[in-house]
């Protein structure tokens, strides 16, 4: 046996002891992600391809393209959602407008998911401890996860370049755009890496990262509608400011690289300061006594904190967008803009149209709450806690009912919070908060039946099998995508109509369509009935 000093010397001479085992972990992770990773990359590439090919075919002459670009640029809601189009004459920029900002969020999400899945989730489950006792260095799991995310980022970026060039878009712009997606994925991975060091649970880690993305997007939206400088503060604003399809600022790509590098270094430093399984943000102590006495109370308790955050986010984003609404006149400063403003029915009407459009956008975003509640319900089951609950109450109806009630009532509460927020924001600028509340809260509630349908689909997916919780998320993304891309691809109306969001009119500009609201409620009820039938009959676990 070697002496201690010899052994230590031997240990030191091993190349990168701290990173030992990275290659092995990377292979294991790729094996585990052999479906998730290709599907995610393929879907994002398909979105780029669909937009590139469809847009170039849709607008045959330059005038039509300019008109379409101007529609986006003169609608603050669309600018808030997609960012502005800098060069209205560029077919490519029009084609990639939704990809540049909105889908860049999903690209960041890819980086986040890969890193979180192989770091914090592994630590929380205890598998990192099992692996950590083999020849795996302290920073190897983080490195393996980041390497995989980086590889995915590069592959995705290259695929997007190829697809754009194949669709006939400018080569230089395609390269810049593809690299901006690579950069976004790297920033997302870096964010995930830092959050994984801070949070002690996978759920908090995901929440922190998504909250960061949300803050970035709100800053970006505010920058795109208002002062441009704000947009530079957000990585989501860089995609537009890179100006891939015009006078490209190539150095903006360096911003992605620099931010990602800072985040990765920070994550490594933080990793060295904590123990495996612990987070830097300590878990607070809880009460010594429990008051929970029913399934509903339990489900509510499990979702209470995240619901509170959702409510605050709804209220604040409502207030932000509501207070921006009265200032949209500046977007119509040009003579052509003034004409467009008049054509749209004057300033008040345009403000209403913007508030209505933002409501529709928020309805889709807030639906994610119900999916999150349902997915965590499915995890209760796969983690083995549901049997204990069932053994105590003896009723599947109670578990099912509690999940549905929290998700459904939560959505209504979020809609009210957003409506109230936008009324307060709008009213604070033009006066008449009370009047605005009376208009905007009911307008927000008009979107709730469509949100319930999303919730019902997620519940159905869980009721069918708890092992594929991503189906709920996929359904939400599919509904949003149908509305966004369906018209571009000239899909038949009935296909686009599969999305519940297509059946809500633009309140408060248009009066509520009672029959389609009733139809949505009936659809949600039917889906829930099928779901309950299945949930009652299938095996638990």
């Amino acid at each position, binding site marked *: *046996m070697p*002496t*201690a000093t010899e*052994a*230590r010397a*031997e*240990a*030191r001479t*091993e190349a990168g*002891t701290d990173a*030992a*085992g990275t290659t*092995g*972990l990377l292979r*294991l992770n790729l*094996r*585990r992600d052999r479906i998730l990773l290709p599907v995610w990359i393929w879907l994002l590439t398909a979105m780029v391809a669909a937009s590139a090919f469809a847009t170039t075919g849709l607008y045959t002459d330059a005038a039509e393209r300019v008109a379409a670009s101007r529609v986006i640029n003169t609608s603050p809601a669309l600018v808030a959602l997609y960012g502005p189009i800098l060069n209205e004459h560029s077919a490519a920029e029009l084609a990639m407008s939704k990809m540049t900002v909105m889908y860049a969020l999903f690209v960041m999400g890819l980086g986040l998911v890969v890193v979180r899945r192989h770091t914090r989730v592994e630590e929380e*489950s*205890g*598998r990192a*401890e*099992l*692996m*950590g*006792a*083999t*020849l*795996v*260095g*302290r920073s190897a799991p983080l490195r393996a996860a980041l390497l995989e995310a980086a590889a995915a980022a590069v592959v995705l970026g290259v695929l997007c370049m190829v697809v754009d060039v194949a669709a006939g878009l400018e080569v230089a712009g395609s390269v810049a755009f593809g690299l901006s997606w690579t950069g976004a994925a790297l920033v997302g991975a870096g964010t995930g890496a830092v959050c994984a060091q801070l949070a002690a649970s996978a759920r908090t880690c995901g929440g922190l990262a998504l909250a960061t993305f949300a803050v970035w997007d709100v800053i970006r939206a505010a920058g795109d509608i208002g002062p441009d400088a704000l947009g530079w503060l957000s990585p989501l604003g860089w995609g537009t400011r890179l100006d891939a399809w015009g006078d490209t600022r190539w150095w903006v790509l360096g911003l992605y690289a620099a931010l990602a590098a800072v985040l990765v270094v920070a994550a490594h430093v933080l990793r060295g300061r*904590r*123990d*495996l*399984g612990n987070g830097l943000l*300590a878990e607070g102590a809880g009460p010594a006594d429990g008051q929970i006495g029913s399934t509903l109370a339990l489900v509510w308790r499990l979702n209470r904190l995240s619901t509170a955050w959702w409510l605050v986010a709804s209220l604040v984003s409502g207030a932000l967008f509501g207070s921006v609404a009265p200032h949209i006149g500046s977007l119509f400063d040009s003579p052509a803009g003034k004409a467009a403003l008049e054509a749209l029915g004057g300033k008040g009407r345009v403000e209403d149209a913007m508030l209505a459009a933002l409501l529709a956008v928020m309805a889709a975003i807030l639906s994610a709450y119900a999916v999150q509640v349902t997915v965590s319900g499915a995890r209760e089951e*796969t983690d083995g806690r549901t049997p204990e609950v069932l053994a105590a109450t003896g009723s599947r109806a109670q578990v099912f009912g509690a999940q549905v009630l929290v998700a459904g009532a939560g959505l209504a509460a979020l809609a009210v919070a957003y409506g109230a927020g936008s009324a307060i924001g709008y009213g604070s600028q033009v006066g008449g908060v009370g009047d605005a509340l009376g208009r905007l809260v009911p307008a927000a509630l008009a979107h709730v039946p469509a949100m319930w349908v999303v919730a019902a689909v997620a519940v159905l997916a869980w009721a069918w099998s708890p*092992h594929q919780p991503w189906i709920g998320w996929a359904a939400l993304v599919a509904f949003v995508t149908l509305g966004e891309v369906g018209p571009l691809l000239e899909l038949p109306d009935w296909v686009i109509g599969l999305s519940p969001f297509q059946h809500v009119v633009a309140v408060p500009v248009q009066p509520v369509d009672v029959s389609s609201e009733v139809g949505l409620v009936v659809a949600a009820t039917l889906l829930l009935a099928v779901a309950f039938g299945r949930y009652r009959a299938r095996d638990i676990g």
Partner: protein
Amino acid sequence: MSNPIEVHGLVKTFGRARALDGLDLEVAAGEVHGFLGPNGAGKSTTIRALLGLMRTDGGTVSVHGLDPWADAVAIHRRLAYVPGDVAIWPNLSGGEAIDTLLRMRGLDPKATDRDALLERFDLDPTKKGRTYSKGNRQKVALVAAFATQVELLVLDEPTSGLDPLMERVFNECLAEHKAQGTTVLLSSHILSEVERLADRVTIIRQGRTVENGTLAELRHLRRNHVRAQITGALPADLTGVHDLQVTDGAVTCAVDPDGLPGLLRALDAAGVESLTCTPPSLEELFLDAYRN
């Protein structure tokens, strides 16, 4: 040469809580060392410090003469670990999980006796991780650990979830490794298991070591329980005898090792008809350690 495991005055704090408060642990080469303590005493925390998974706040830890935090990988090369609560990847089969753990230590699974161990532990390697019960997940980690030829096995409550038949297989495997000179740290709160397998034990409580030594040494420190039937009477002032009760000639008492000769002489003088003297079980050592 230093012991495979040397821990002195180990301190680990979580916020204001002191999980380990000056803990000592020495494991000599080639021995099976029982590591005992109630839930929350700090057994798993100590083990995580030994594996370099956790930074310490005071004291010294050395494994094979190395500092686990600085040289974790070099230490891991020479040990195998089975956690108390084994988690495996839900979408990998049991066989894939075992081979992953073996390959991650640079071993070729085909060159180990993995297949023989699978058979002995009666584990189906083709099932997906999510379908395994707690006991089967435990077997995955045990097979991966026993298939490696290492100098040190660190086992944290390794038989929780195993049925008695599988416990026997576990004991056999442990005995085989011990015969090859493997050092074993066996953490447990199942006393009979440790009593059967361990050469020496360390008992900890609230992050401190309260007892350590061979079972014989610990017994030496402890009182024997004596039952006897006598015809006469015993003097009241026997030294080293406690809880003395005499009812119709039936005697029960506890006696310090020093008091035993005096007690035996007194019993002889009192006309002893029957006598049983039981050494304390580990259970009693264990309870004694907590009472203080």
